[in-house]
């Protein structure tokens, strides 16, 4: 009797394990999905998105879709430089794109436009 019960329990467990395995294989979280590129677009209206969240170690690419030049640097304004990873973007002529350096720690970074000192050109990158 005991052996039958043990056999039945073993079969049910094996079946559940198999089913669980099949379910896991079809789950969307199992293989890591391709990362959405972190892009900030610059137009005459300003930067978009104004706030962007990324993971530690990621980079952010700035794209100049405006008719004039832009010059992206870290910190809320030139008098308060910060987040030097953003300084890697620098001068962008019309149509040009360039990425930041990887952000190594979790924090919030502000940036500004060195060439076009307007509030619409300021933004925030949140690293988690």
């Amino acid at each position, binding site marked *: 009797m005991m052996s039958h019960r043990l056999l039945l329990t073993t079969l049910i467990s094996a079946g559940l394990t198999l089913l669980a395995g099949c379910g896991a294989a079809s789950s969307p979280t199992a293989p890591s999905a391709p990362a959405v590129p972190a892009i900030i677009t610059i137009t005459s209206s300003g930067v978009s998105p104004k706030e962007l969240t990324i993971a530690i170690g990621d980079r952010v690419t700035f794209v100049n879709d405006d008719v*004039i030049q832009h*010059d992206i640097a870290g910190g809320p304004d*030139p008098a308060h430089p910060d987040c030097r990873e953003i300084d890697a973007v620098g*001068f962008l002529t*019309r*149509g*040009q794109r360039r990425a930041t350096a990887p952000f190594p720690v979790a924090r919030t970074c502000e940036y500004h436009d060195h060439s*076009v000192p307007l509030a619409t050109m300021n933004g925030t990158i949140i690293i988690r």
Partner: protein
Amino acid sequence: MIRDWRFVILVLAALAPCDIAAQTATGQPAPTPVPAGWQWTTDGRVFFGFNYQLRKFTDFSAWESQNWITASGERPIARGTLRLASMFSFEPFTMRDIGSPQVFQTGEMFRGAPIIDYQHPHDLVMGLGAEYRRPLRRVTLRAGVDLVGTPTLGPPVFMHRPSAAEIPPAPLSHHHLDSSHITPGVVRGGLEAGAWRFEGSWFRGREPDSNRTDLDLGALDSAAVRVSWIRGAWSAQISGAYLKEPEAVTPFDAKKLTASIGRTGGRLAWLAAFGQKREVHGNLEAYLFEATLHATVGDIVYTRIESVAKDILDVGFHRGAFHRHRQSQIGALTVGYLRDVWRGRGGSFGIGADVTGYLVPANLEESYGSPVSFHVFARYRLPAKSGSASHVH
């Protein structure tokens, strides 16, 4: 490499042929006796065409028109000569607000930012003023007041000098040499003695704003002096200026030094010039050589060679965070041809084209690559008329 580029400009200046008439240091013809009554003079040019700037990331192009017209009159008065002068441009309506696409061109503002890669449109009112000139023994005294005028700084502005008048694009060195030609508020005076001319002026140092149809009047807070030498076909000048906060976003004063020499007349006009902007962010130097050859009655060939320092990478002012601007020494070579296809009493009409190649410094290569500029254009030139109401020369 940059030194070589400057050397080429100086060599070309020295080798240029010398067979000419008269381009004065202020762009005005040499003084001649004035008949009684008003004598009126008009002049002007209208360029219309396609401008294409081949770029690394995004090409620029535009259908546009550069244009200007002058009208002036003079008459004897009180043993001297009174001259009234005006100059207008319709570029505020024939160009985009930001200006004419031109790789590496800088100067003035648009949307609160320094303009880069565009030549700004010129103001509707480019000149409006009066000058009185009176001989006194061996010298001639001059005094003038302009609502909008040209301080005593630099060589003749590019659209007035015979070496450049047929070239549609502005020189990259425009803001090193002759950009103050549209200054709202100028008081000037000086004297001529033989071949020499000594002049000084007080004026508003601020550059025109991006509203091209208003008058940007203000206090006369800047000064310039110029010494010119004009003899036959030759002319030369050296000048300097102190400028009170010339750029709207930069609360710093600046100085400019310029020197130029040229010959005009016969078939060839040429000019070699040096300009230096002394700004709080550093000194920016420019070297220019340009020439226009009237090969035949209707065939015009022109060239312009420049080596110009620009602070494109760090342009602008940042309150509370002073830093010197990185400089980029840019070379440019333009060659062009213009054919007059019709000439008559109503003026002349020509078609032409030019191409400009650039020597791009290392610190701009990533952003600019190897750009090339093209212009294909039609040019109408008003007849240079002078005369009274009843007599036209």
